[in-house]
């Protein structure tokens, strides 16, 4: 006999009709839910995200369907769990389609049956395996939620209902199969390796009872399938659609680039204050959240107990949109799901203040940990900065400490109250002078490297030590470099991240204008914030430069032998740990050069903090936070310093002036001054260098 089975075995005419009739309800609900969401996205501003569609599609398949971004080292358990549920479910879905094609298309229309023989046997084997995959994944999910209970995972009814529905669907499938086998007991029944042993236990029960139980469970299975489909669009199960769409239409710009407000002078509204201010992609963003909480795992505000939790913020916006769109807000789907935290508050709320609190908006350090770890590329930082823009530019509502920063940027072209004429004062402490670009241009001398010092490196006394160290390294290595001196202006990074886009644009344009006056091969900067702005944001306004971070240049100089480190140097006698600056690491993917520099220092023994590289914890100084008071939760810089101290290291190597300032303060805060110190990698290298006479690095007095 050829292995196969009768489709619709033990199902009467009511069942054969009803199964199709009842399809209408879940399909209607599903289509309504998806259409309403797309309708809401359509309320947003237009934005072109349809470029390079093939590349987008490939990346979406790789990251979502193939789980490239879901199964990650930082979330291995959750990733494998999701893989098992997703692929188990997909296989079962494909299995259902195969049965449908056989029963409704090939047999009635073509008289051809493929659901038999070896195909059928393999089909049965794979379907039984797929069911086990789903069960394993669901059990892992329950274990994670109820036993492991990671801090970033919150369990809402929706989560448990969906997992239960998935489990019930699979168990019903096995039972229906076992009940059929208990009556039919095919020769090839053992290929259904889960249901077959169950059928062996049931086979000696009266046939009528088994048939009755089969009918009841078949109907119940159909009902569960329909309920699952109908509930799909109103629960987080919508995420296979919304998340895939989000990954497909994700921003392909560099992660560190914040979009400019085009023609800002003519813009009718500035920033985000209502649904219509978002772009359609931003609205889709908030609907793509699957509540996994990975954005929280390395979020400094979540870790230090501040009101801002990126996942909740996104869900609040999503809930607000659901309220506006009337997607059954307040019902089970939205209440404990998308609008979990502000559920049922209605559509007549202001976005800022009513949906998202100002504390949440201002707490963000823009470190990008949320975006880095979000499996579906939700862009939290642009969302937060967008709301800051509205507060700053439309409402004039921002923390008082920022007022001075804005004033100084406007008047002094830096966040500090120093006149531009004092930008190069630090050079007076060098044995050898440093040329300014204007002088070099006047003398028609070539400059290889433009050292973009940055505001902190120019004016802040602690960071001046880094600047001096770097200048001495460059001089010692014989690098032909010069600085902008009094012509240097802030890149606009702090203003931009704080939401003062207008001021940021002025600063950026001014800097580009200055840089474009001169000829040089590359820019080096010790500030990752300047580095990020120059590398990622300046090209859009006509500033195209080859820019390197000082860690990269120093690493290159050590590698090429232009800098010799003293093997007998006693500078480093203890362990050293390195902190990844967010704007160098996560935003610009430079993790190795600074480590290579630290490891090359004689006598140093490097230890990693548990949170390192793309999992690094922010110092708390980005996004303008360095200039603001930290009044909520515990202090981020102290948390990070404590992590560094816990490694047993005596020195914390930094590579960012913002981090330097925050850590100096953090060391004092935890009372570790004297026992523990923070140094920039340039300082570490300079202190352990074999000093030699400069080789004409800089001329002039």
């Amino acid at each position, binding site marked *: 006999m050829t292995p196969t089975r009768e489709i619709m075995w033990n199902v009467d005419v009511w069942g054969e009709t009803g199964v199709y009739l009842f399809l209408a309800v879940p399909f209607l609900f599903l289509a309504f839910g998806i259409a309403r969401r797309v309708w809401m996205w359509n309320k947003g501003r237009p934005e072109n995200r349809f470029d390079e569609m093939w590349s987008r599609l490939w990346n979406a398949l790789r990251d979502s369907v193939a789980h490239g971004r879901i199964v990650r080292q930082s979330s291995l358990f959750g990733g494998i769990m999701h893989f098992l549920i997703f692929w188990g479910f997909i296989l079962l879905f494909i299995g259902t389609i195969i049965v449908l094609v056989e029963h409704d298309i090939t047999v009635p229309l073509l008289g051809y049956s493929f659901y038999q023989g070896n195909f059928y046997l393999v089909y049965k084997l794979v379907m039984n395996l797929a069911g086990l995959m789903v069960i394993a994944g669901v059990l892992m999910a329950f274990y994670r939620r109820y036993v492991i209970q990671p801090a970033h995972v919150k369990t809402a009814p929706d989560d448990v209902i969906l997992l239960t529905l998935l489990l019930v669907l699979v168990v019903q499938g096995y039972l229906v199969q076992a009940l059929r086998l208990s009556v039919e007991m095919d020769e090839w029944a053992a290929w259904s390796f889960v249901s077959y042993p169950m059928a062996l236990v*049931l086979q000696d029960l009266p046939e009528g009872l088994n048939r009755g139980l089969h009918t009841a469970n078949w109907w119940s299975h159909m009902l569960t399938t329909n309920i699952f489909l109908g509930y799909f669009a109103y629960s987080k199960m919508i995420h296979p659609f919304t998340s895939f769409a989000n990954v497909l239409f994700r921003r392909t710009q560099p992660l560190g680039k914040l979009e400019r407000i085009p023609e800002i002078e003519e813009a009718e509204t500035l920033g985000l204050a209502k649904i219509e201010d978002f772009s359609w992609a931003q609205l889709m963003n908030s609907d793509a959240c699957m509540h996994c909480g990975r954005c929280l795992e390395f979020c400094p505000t979540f870790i230090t107990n501040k009101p801002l939790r990126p996942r909740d913020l996104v869900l609040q916006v999503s809930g607000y949109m659901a309220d506006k769109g009337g997607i059954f807000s307040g019902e*089970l789907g939205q209440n*404990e799901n998308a609008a979990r935290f502000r559920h049922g508050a209605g559509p007549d709320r202001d976005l800022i203040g009513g949906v998202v609190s100002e504390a949440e908006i201002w707490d963000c350090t823009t470190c990008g940990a949320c975006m880095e770890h979000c499996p579906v590329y939700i862009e939290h930082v642009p969302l937060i900065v967008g709301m800051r823009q509205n507060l700053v530019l439309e409402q004039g509502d921002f923390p008082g400490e920022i007022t001075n920063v804005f004033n100084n940027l406007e008047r002094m072209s830096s966040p500090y109250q120093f006149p531009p004429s004092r930008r190069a004062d630090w050079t007076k402490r060098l044995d050898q002078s440093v040329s300014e670009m204007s002088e070099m241009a006047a003398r028609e001398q070539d400059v290889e490297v433009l050292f973009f010092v940055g505001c902190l490196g120019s004016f802040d006394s602690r960071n001046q030590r880094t600047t001096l160290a770097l200048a001495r390294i460059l001089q010692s290595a014989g690098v032909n470099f010069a600085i902008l001196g009094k012509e240097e202006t802030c890149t606009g990074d702090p203003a931009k991240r704080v939401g003062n886009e207008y001021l940021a644009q002025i600063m950026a344009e001014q800097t580009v204008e200055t840089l474009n006056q001169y000829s040089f091969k590359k820019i080096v900067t010790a500030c990752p914030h300047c580095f990020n702005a120059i590398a990622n944001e300046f090209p859009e306004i006509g500033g195209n430069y080859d820019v390197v971070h000082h860690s990269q240049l120093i690493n290159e100089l050590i590698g090429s032998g232009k800098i010799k480190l003293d093997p007998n140097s006693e500078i480093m006698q203890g362990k050293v740990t390195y902190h990844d600056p967010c704007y160098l690491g996560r935003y610009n993917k430079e993790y190795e050069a600074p480590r290579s520099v630290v490891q090359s220092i004689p006598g140093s023994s490097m230890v990693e903090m548990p949170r390192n590289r793309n999992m690094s914890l922010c110092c708390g100084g980005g996004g303008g936070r360095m200039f603001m008071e930290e009044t909520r939760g515990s202090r981020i810089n102290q948390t990070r310093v404590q992590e560094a101290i816990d490694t047993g290291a005596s020195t914390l190597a930094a590579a960012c002036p913002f981090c330097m300032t925050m850590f100096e303060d953090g060391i004092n805060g935890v009372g570790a001054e004297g026992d523990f110190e923070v140094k920039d990698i340039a300082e570490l290298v300079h202190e352990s260098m074999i000093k030699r006479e400069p080789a004409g690095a800089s001329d002039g007095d």
Partner: protein
Amino acid sequence: MTTLVTLWNQATERRFRSALIGLGVILSGVVLIAIGAVVEWGWTRLIGAGAISLASVFVGALVGWSDPVRPRIAAVFSSWSRILLALLAFVMMAPLFIGLLALFGGLFVALDDTSWLSLFAGTVITLFLLIITLLTVALALPLAFRGLRKSSAEVPSDSNGQDES
């Protein structure tokens, strides 16, 4: 696609008419399948099921792509939600648990020619499925009722400015 967009952008009255036509198609699909099932015409299933699926997607999308009429629907759902949940949970779970519990009956009447190993494997699998289903349902149901209790209390009574009529 252009036709659909045009349709979606049409006046409420025409959209309503289109939705009625969609519902008519769904009904026709049902009748076609029923006739096919009685007279054993296989091809009617495909056409009927296709008509039902496409028309329901069309009607759902049509209603979804229009101004919200939320308050009344939400209120109806809210007032019936707990009874509905209890009913659905019973219909979904009762046959499953009875089916799984039939295992014990099966063990009692098992004939001597069934190997003990097979019975053991079947018992273990069935018991495992029974236990995990019981546990998850026991976790999910109270949470679902709690969620509904909350939502019933928090459904906004005001409309969002869109008049259903």
